């Protein structure tokens, strides 16, 4: 618990937490003050954003779902991108000589040390994500009377995706001791995923079958961030989960990667 608390303090000190909070608060304030919805007889009669009225009246439900889906997608891509950036150095910083020595000299196992750091990092990101999601949900729901509970599930999906990627970043951080290196490789996975989704179209360009197998292997092994993003959007729109495989494979990937990180951390000399 002390390690989790220390991780929080470190994030506060590095202003990453405050930066996140500021951006989230700004977005919430935007919804509070800039978005105006007039409801007449249960139907939306006008909508304006920053004082500019929409040219057509459309079904209120669709607008709300659209706005919330937009926020969810923004959080999914931008939020995960920023969260990875903000937390990239937390594991390498832990492993610095003189710093890690003192942790290991305490009556805590190495597993507890790395798990504490991991959970602390997740907690920071989770707080920020749910801060924005919950406040946006409350603002939109109170303004419109439409309570879209699927929007809250977006927070969970974003956290699952971030956790899987952060587990990879933890592994790379433990192996290399470098925040930038582990961040670069994790971003590569994040942005490579949409390509892997389109691998059927890439097969035709390959001159040997082995490359096809490699692409298939990478697809099934790595977190399918493109599909997870799609699932997030569809959850918000009330469509539901069409395919559970990206979710459980991301969870499995995260767990296995974290176990591997712990094993390597146990073997390391400092």
């Amino acid at each position, binding site marked *: 618990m*002390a390690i989790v608390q220390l991780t929080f*303090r*470190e994030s506060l*000190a590095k202003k990453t937490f405050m930066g996140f909070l500021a951006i989230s608060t700004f977005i919430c304030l935007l919804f509070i003050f800039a978005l105006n919805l007039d409801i007449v007889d249960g139907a939306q009669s006008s909508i304006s954003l920053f004082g500019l009225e929409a040219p057509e009246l459309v079904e209120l439900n669709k607008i709300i779902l659209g706005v919330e889906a937009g926020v969810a997608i923004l959080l999914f891509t931008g939020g995960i991108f920023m969260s990875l950036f903000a937390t990239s150095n937390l594991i390498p910083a832990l492993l610095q000589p*003189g*710093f890690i*020595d003192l942790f290991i*000299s305490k009556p*805590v196992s190495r597993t507890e040390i790395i798990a504490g750091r991991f959970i602390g990092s997740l907690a920071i990101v989770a707080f920020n994500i749910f801060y924005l999601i919950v406040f946006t949900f409350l603002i939109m729901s109170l303004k419109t009377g439409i309570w879209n509970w699927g929007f809250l599930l977006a927070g969970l999906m974003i956290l699952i995706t971030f956790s899987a990627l952060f587990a990879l970043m933890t592994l790379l951080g433990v192996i290399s001791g470098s925040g930038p290196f582990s961040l670069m490789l994790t971003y590569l996975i994040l942005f490579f995923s949409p390509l892997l989704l389109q691998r059927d179209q890439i097969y035709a360009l390959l001159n040997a079958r082995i490359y096809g197998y490699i692409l298939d292997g990478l697809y099934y092994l790595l977190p399918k961030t493109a599909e997870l993003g799609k699932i997030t959007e569809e959850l918000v729109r009330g469509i539901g989960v069409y395919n559970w495989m990206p979710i459980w494979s991301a969870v499995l990937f995260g767990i296995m990667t974290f176990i591997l990180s712990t094993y390597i951390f146990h073997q390391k000399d*400092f």
Partner: protein
Amino acid sequence: MLAIETIGLTKYYNRGKIKALQDFSLQVDTGKIFSLLGPNGAGKTTLIKALIGIIQPTRGNAMILGQSFQDYKVHKKIGYLAENHRFPDFLTARQVLYYYGKMSGVAGADLSVQIPGLLKKVNLQDWMDTKIRKYSKGMMQRMGLAHALINNPDLLFLDEPTDGIDPVGRREIRDLLKELRNEGKTIFLNSHLLSEVERVSDEIAIMKQGKLLQKGQLEDFLSVKEQYQLQLKGDSTLIDQTFKSANISADFNVNLFTIKVQDHQELNILIDALREQSIDILAVIPKKISLEDFFIEVLDENEVKPA
């Protein structure tokens, strides 16, 4: 129960090319200040790190306070001051001790009571709520020492505890270590400052290239057997004659006569002879060498000469 016992502890790096520890076997009794000496690269820090679990030994075993060194729970009873320790610099001294104390298993309520007293012990009470990024090197050392004591450990590992501390501060730390020893704690000390080690240690060990060369009571190593220095007052001719008649040769330096005798009996006979001649005996001091001289002597004896 021994405080520390190592049995054939070995650590190789780079596939055996670097032998940091070689079958290192050592026993340290409880309630003592034990100092480990050695030249740079001897393996002193490697030994401490292996005992605490910061590095994994290649082979061998060790016990700390009767428990396996690989059981991290034994760390509840130890405190550690690392040579290049680092704390999160955005914390104050109070916060450092709080978080690291919690990690050591100390309850929050106890910490609130202990922390001010502990910082006072190391003379940091006026800097309790200042962020440690503003601390000098000496203050960081004191901070490290306070941190090592936060869980009231039975065994303290101190790696260069007086590094960067002024002479007054060093004396305060020496006094603190003696106080802790008198409370029954065991202190395992690594230091290059032989003058500090000489003033504070009960027992020492000397190592080189990962091997133990010498181990024993400091007093025994520094006493030169059957050599004494005598401070005398009287007629110098009479003094010379007395030495000659006792068949003892003496070197005179400053105001001390240095003599070598075969045993205590011979010394007593000389003293009686001096007193018969009414020569005042102001002091009889067993001759000692400095720890530095002894240390260099041991290293030279064990120097591996090139073929």
